[in-house]
């Protein structure tokens, strides 16, 4: 692995050719990326042009508290060119998982890239940063992940937070979050941060984000939570192929019932699709083979903040802090309703006792008037 980028950096297209791909392969790759990004014809031309002429952008890819499923997802993204060109040693100057160098050599490579391409490189972060106990829970090469992140972020042009770990802490940040796992946007300020949540994010989505940054030289349009709009503006529910069953009111109740066999909607067995923003329904997984709902399992909500603590996987009802894990809105509501009914009944009894005279007088008065009416002696 050439750990230090050569002086005159080749373009992406140069690398494509060097790797033995044809021009046609390259065009197909560009078209695919353009489609994922939702680009128009002119946008597509721009992507093609950029990948042809622009020298490759150096990338530093850091791994902190994570399981590496994001990297796995990325290198398995459907188009081989993604792995070969974007991820190969050409683009990637430092990533523990995939680089050949190790130890001192590897750290050297990162240092070199950071110095040589100050303000130009893209920093990809996979995993969360533990801040408890001065960060000892995750140390690489004698430095805490916090130190590494700070150093690498200082000269980065933009930061991409891969996966739910980097975006919201994922499983490490689940209560009680023993290591104080912290997402990237809470630690770095003053740099554009692209959040690409998911556990893991879809490989094509990751490729799309990188291609966008490389081709246009700027970060893609983000939503209010910092996620690329092209992939996270729709809920899984809005693109789900089981949606007609939902609208019809036809639901699976248990995973082995008749309705499950018929492929009804998984809402009642805990599908989080209606509150999850992701591209699974459109892009799917593993070269567009399938996605959880297609395999008969509800959406987990893996790209949503705090999804580990948001309640149970197989029910729609969610836990509420302070009421114990078993409490759901409906249970607490019914109890409160019962308590209210009892209180009102007690109040009604008390009224009749304590205000007896008052009520009695009102009744008397009414009866008197009634009598007066009859006797016509008003």
């Amino acid at each position, binding site marked *: 692995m050439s750990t230090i980028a050569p002086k005159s950096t080749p373009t992406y297209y140069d690398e494509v050719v060097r790797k033995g791909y044809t021009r046609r392969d390259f065009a197909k790759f560009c078209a695919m990326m353009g489609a994922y990004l939702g680009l128009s014809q002119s946008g597509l031309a721009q992507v093609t042009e950029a990948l042809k002429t622009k020298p490759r952008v150096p990338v530093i890819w850091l791994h902190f508290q994570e399981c590496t499923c994001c990297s796995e997802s990325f290198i398995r993204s459907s188009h081989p060119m993604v792995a070969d060109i974007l991820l190969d040693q050409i683009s990637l100057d430092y990533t523990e998982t995939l680089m050949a160098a190790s130890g001192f050599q590897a750290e050297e490579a990162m240092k070199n890239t950071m110095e040589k391409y100050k303000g130009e490189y893209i920093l990809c972060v996979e995993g969360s940063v533990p801040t408890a106990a001065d960060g000892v829970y995750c140390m690489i090469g004698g430095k805490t992940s916090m130190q590494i992140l700070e150093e690498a972020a200082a000269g980065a042009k933009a930061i991409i937070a891969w996966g739910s770990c980097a975006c919201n802490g994922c499983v490490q940040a689940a209560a009680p979050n023993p290591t104080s796992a912290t997402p990237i946007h809470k630690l770095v300020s003053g740099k554009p941060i692209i959040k690409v949540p998911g556990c893991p994010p879809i490989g094509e989505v990751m490729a799309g984000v990188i291609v966008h940054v490389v081709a246009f030289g700027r970060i893609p349009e983000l939503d209010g939570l910092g996620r690329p709009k092209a992939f996270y503006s729709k809920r899984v529910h809005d693109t789900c192929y089981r949606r007609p069953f939902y609208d019809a009111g*036809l639901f699976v109740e248990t995973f082995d019932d008749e309705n499950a066999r018929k492929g009804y909607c998984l809402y009642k067995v805990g599908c989080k699709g209606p509150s999850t923003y992701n591209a699974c329904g459109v892009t799917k997984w593993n070269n567009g083979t399938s996605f959880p709902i297609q395999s008969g399992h509800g959406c987990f909500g893996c790209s949503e903040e705090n999804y580990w603590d948001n309640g149970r996987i197989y029910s729609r009802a969610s836990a509420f802090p302070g009421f114990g894990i078993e409490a759901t809105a409906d249970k607490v509501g019914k109890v409160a309703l019962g308590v209210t009914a009892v209180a009102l009944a007690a109040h009604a009894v008390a009224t009749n006792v304590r205000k007896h005279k008052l009520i009695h007088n009102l009744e008397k008065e009414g009866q008197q008037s009634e009598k007066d009416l009859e006797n016509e002696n008003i």
Partner: protein
Amino acid sequence: MEKNKVHRLRRVFVWELPVRIYHWLNALCIVALIATGLYIGSPLVLQSSSEASEKFFMGWVKTIHFIAAFLFFFNFAFRIYWGFVGNKYADWRNFIPTNKHYFKEMWQVFKMDIFMMKGKEHLSVGHNAVAGFSYFITFILFLIQCITGFGLYAAMSNFWFAKLFAWVPTLFGGDILLRQVHHWTTWLFILFTVVHVYLVFYHDYVEGRGEISSMGGGWKFIEDEVFDEVKAEKQKKLQEKKEKMEAQMKPLT
């Protein structure tokens, strides 16, 4: 049977027509929203032999929920407006304490109606202070429910009005928490409705002034003595003022 003292009652126009329309439209919307909302949260498992494409049950439940939500919102907005142009019983000052008297009355209501202490019954022709303030709290609930509801709705709508709420999921970090807040607040609406209906019956029962029917015709019936009392009080105040002024004038003469 000894002859009772029979009060003469005077008709007072309390709830204007717009207030009454608001009230019943609001009631209708809330009932529809609660019913459809709870159904959406946990729908029944229907069995059907027909194709899904021929059915749209959940779709209709949601449609009713959304239509009711829009009605509810604009009706609520209208009521706020009416709080500035309506009669004195509709005025916004009934809901938000602006003076010491408001708190005094609240305490009075607590003493008489909740702790059931003996003493002089308080009188309020329109809302009493506790009721008024509790409506202010429900207005806040209305607001929470509108914001969270339209926040959840924004992502699936192209309507500019719904899009105005696109910032809400951002604030809550996503739809999951937002949905929870929306669901929990629903239960506060249910509790409010129960207590509200009970208290209307309670007031009608212990006051005999036509509390229940007032939301129909707009009238309440107030004892003649009350008018005398109010008049006397006004005169007393006027007298005091006059005396004070005279006392000030004296040194000048």
